[in-house]
Structure formats: C-alpha cells, structure tokens
C-alpha cells in the first residue's frame, strides 16, 4: 500500500519529500515527482512534508486523483520516453539522479501559466 504523488505536484516539485524519504524512493521526473511503489515502505514520512498536500496513501487519494495511483506505478513499470527499459527498482533516487521525463498522463497536462 504505497504512497503516491498526485496532480498538485506537477510543475511544483518542491522536493521536500525527497529529503524526508528514509529509503530514497521518490524519483524526479521532468515536471513531477513519483514514489516508487516497489521501494516504498509505507512509513508516511513524505506525506506531511509536501507543502501542496500532493502525497497520499494509494487507498486514500482525494476524489478525482485515482489515476495517479496507476500512473506512479507506470513511471517505473513501463519504459519512459527516450528509454528502452523500464526503471524498475533503481535502489535510490540520489544515486540515480533526475529522470527528467514524465509519464504521458503528466506530460499531457497543460502547464500552469
């Protein structure tokens, strides 16, 4: 039952959650951050760290944000644009560095002007 990052993170990417995550499982896309559901340990440290309240447990996401549960998974399970392989479980965002691209769902969102 991992935590997921929802729409409010898009184009905000405050990154406070990345500092809090004890297993370093929050990865940086181009416009949004993503929790790796394979690496998340359900501790909840990220949730209060987010200044825009974008983080929820997957079974408690706000109404209308359900698609982000599957989308967080997709970021790791499907090959992202420009990559031949899915990210899978890189084992830590700090060592891996920013991924720089987003899922289709996130990339398709209009930028806040």
């Amino acid at each position, binding site marked *: *039952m991992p935590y997921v990052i929802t729409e409010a993170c898009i184009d905000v990417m405050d990154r406070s959650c990345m*500092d*809090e*995550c*004890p*297993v*370093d499982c929050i990865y940086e896309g181009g416009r949004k951050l993503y929790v790796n559901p394979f690496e*998340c*340990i*359900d*501790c*909840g*440290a*990220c*949730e*209060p760290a987010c200044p825009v*309240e974008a983080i929820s*447990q997957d*079974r*408690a996401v706000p109404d209308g944000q359900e698609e982000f549960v599957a989308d967080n998974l997709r970021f790791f399970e499907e090959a992202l644009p420009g990559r031949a392989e899915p990210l899978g479980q890189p084992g*830590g965002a700090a060592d891996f560095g920013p991924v720089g691209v987003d899922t289709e769902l996130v990339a398709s969102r209009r930028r806040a002007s």
Partner: protein
Amino acid sequence: MNTSPGTPRVAVVGSGPSGLYTVAALVASGQPLHVDVIDRLPTPYGLIRYGVAPDHARMKAVTRVLAKPFAQGNVRFVGNVEIGRDLTHHELMATYDAVVYASGAERDRRLGIPGEDRPGVLGSAEFVRWYNGHPDAAAAELSLDMERVAVVGAGNVALDIARVLGRTASELRETDVPARVLATLERSTVREVHILIRRGPADVKFTPAELYQLTELADADVILHDGGDGIGDPELAEDKRVRLNLKTLRSFATTPGRGARRRIHLWFRTVPVEIAGPGRVAGIVAERAGERFTLPAGLVVTAVGFRGVPVDGLPFSESAGTVPNDAGRVVADGATVPRLYVAGWLKRGPSGIIGTNKPDGAETAAAVLADLAGRPGPARPDITEVLAQRDQRRVDWAGWLRLEAHEGTLGIADGRGRVKVHDRESMLRYSSATV
C-alpha cells in the same frame, strides 16, 4: 581491517535507524574514515527489528537501505558488545577519534497512577520486545489467558499492540514472530482490547495510515467511544493528518460491527486514574466527562512514550530524558565535549518516525565530519585487539548475514516464511562460522 595510519576512526554505538542513518551520512561524505557500528545485541537494526510491529513487514524493508554502508570496506558491525559491560566509555573514547551514541530510549514513561506496579501491568517496551522476539524478553513467560486487555496511549505503539492482539492466528503466522511467541498468541483468549486515550480525536498522535489499518483486521471490529463530544468535522481540520484521522474515526462510528470475534475499543477523552486490584490487575479505573468507571482487564499495557536511559560517561538531562547537545555535539557545563556526539532519540527525545532519523543522523554526521576534517588523530588500538583480550563473542557483519540466512529457513517446516531466532545463545551459535 586495513587501518591506514591517520584515517580517523568513528564509533557509532547503536545500530538502529538513528545510528545507521548517521553512518550512511558519514560514508556518503567520501571523507576517508573507518566506522565501527557497535551494538549490545548480536543483531543490527535496533527498533526496526525489535520495535516496528511484526505485521509491518514492508516498513521493516527499510533494512535494505540501512544495510548499505556495510557493503563498504570501511564500515564494520561489532555486535554483542555492550558499552559499560564489555568495554568502558573511557576505553571507547581511547579507541576512536569520534564516538556517536545512538543507543535510543529504552525506558517506558510511567503513567504515575496508583496500582501501576501490580502484576499484569506492562510497559509497552516490554510487551513490544516480547512479541518482536527481543533476546532480553526470550525467557518472559507471558500468557494471554484473559478476555480483556487495556492499552493506555494515543500513539502508534498503542495501535501496534492493539493490532497484534486483534490479529487472527493465520494473520500472525505470516509474520516473523518467534515460534514461542506465535504459540502464545495462538492460544490467546483476548476478545476485547480497550485503548484509553486522554486526548480528543483531533489531538491523537496516530499516523493516519496506522489508524486506517485498524479497518483492515481480518476478524476484529473497531468500536468508538468518543466521549460524547463527537468526532469533529474532518473538513474543518487544517492539518491534513488530523483530517485523515478524523475521516477514519468517522468511518468507525458509521460502520456497523461485523460481529467479529475480537473488538478494539477506542476510548477518547478518557483519563486513567488507577489500576484496580486487589493483587494482580483486575481492571483500570478511568474518568470521562466527569464520570468515573472501571473497565475490567486482565492485562494493562502502558504506551505513553519512552525515556532515554542515562549513558555512563555522558551528561544527561533527567527532565528531558536526553543528552544535552548542540546539533549532535554533546554539551556539558555549557561547553561542547570534544569527540563526543549523539543521534536519534538520545539526542532529540523519543518522537518521530523512522524517516525522522535521516535528517537527524545527517546533522550529527555533519558535526563529526566538520570536527574531524584535517585533524588526523593519534595512533589508536583497534577495537578487535582490545576485545580479543577478553572473553567476548563478537558478531561481525558476515555473522549477522549467517544468522539472517538461518532465520530465512526457520519457518519452512511450519509453512511459515522468515522466523526470528529469539534467544541470545542461539543467535550467537547461528552467527558463528562453525555451526
């Protein structure tokens, strides 16, 4: 270990999350260092192994990250070595250029009400150690042959205890609790678990996810006793955590019981005033909305927080239960004590979650690194040389991995997964290379 002359040696006492996040930050600096992680137990991970509830297997997976520094050639595990017993604080200071105490807070805070010393009243630390297979609790003869248990507390530990008591035998078999603990839990006749909470619903310290977990027990209903003042409107709460907790609590209030075999009662605004006897505990007297009543209970577990234990050689503030410090540097009589540091609960008090230790450990590590920089220490003996002169069975990292591998196979015969080894002698035996 190849000890390059002049390479500073750092000892970290305690291999729980605070100690190991400190180590991770020390190693991440890239500064040349030797780090020894000393633990009084033969096993690493402290409260991850012995505090985190057995049904929180995912959370225990944080060990995957905590173990990383031991893959480096310059970090060693020195298990089954207790400072103050096998090695004095003075010897430790003579063996290392910097010493970080991250040995936690191992005492329960007391309720401070009459009857607290009756047989059948346990502190949460004792109860949690028992079900988690802590070697200090390996010999404890605990029986759960009562129908009602009262748990006092408004934090995650109280929830952990209630959940473990509320789980079915088959749910518990999926955890890694030692066989002896499982047998006691399987024989449990506990049907009612009362959680007594002084605070109101908006002021509890439960992590929302952990409170929500009460809805997921296979055969336990949750009964809410809100104290007459209601739960409060979640949407009016500014804090997200409060909002989520209130939502979960409201769902308890509106969900009809399933007629489950066990019931977990949440009593809000309920202040325990006395543990009733005579002799062994028979119940807990509490006050709610000006009315005094007695909840019968054959076992009372107090989960109202922990206190640090004074460490030999370190200043200690009894009132705070911590070692006075400035960003991790130990402070005595208004001045920092050279080469001496603290991290984790000993440093900031017993609060926060696993993740809290990451920035906390990084802060202490930064102090250590800044103080060591450019200051090669004098030649010092290696701890293994010091310990070799006494009859001390150390457990190194390879030894721990042997024990861990053994635990991985221990449940097979019973159709279980990984199962913990409980007693210290067996731990030492399975960790030794010559089993």
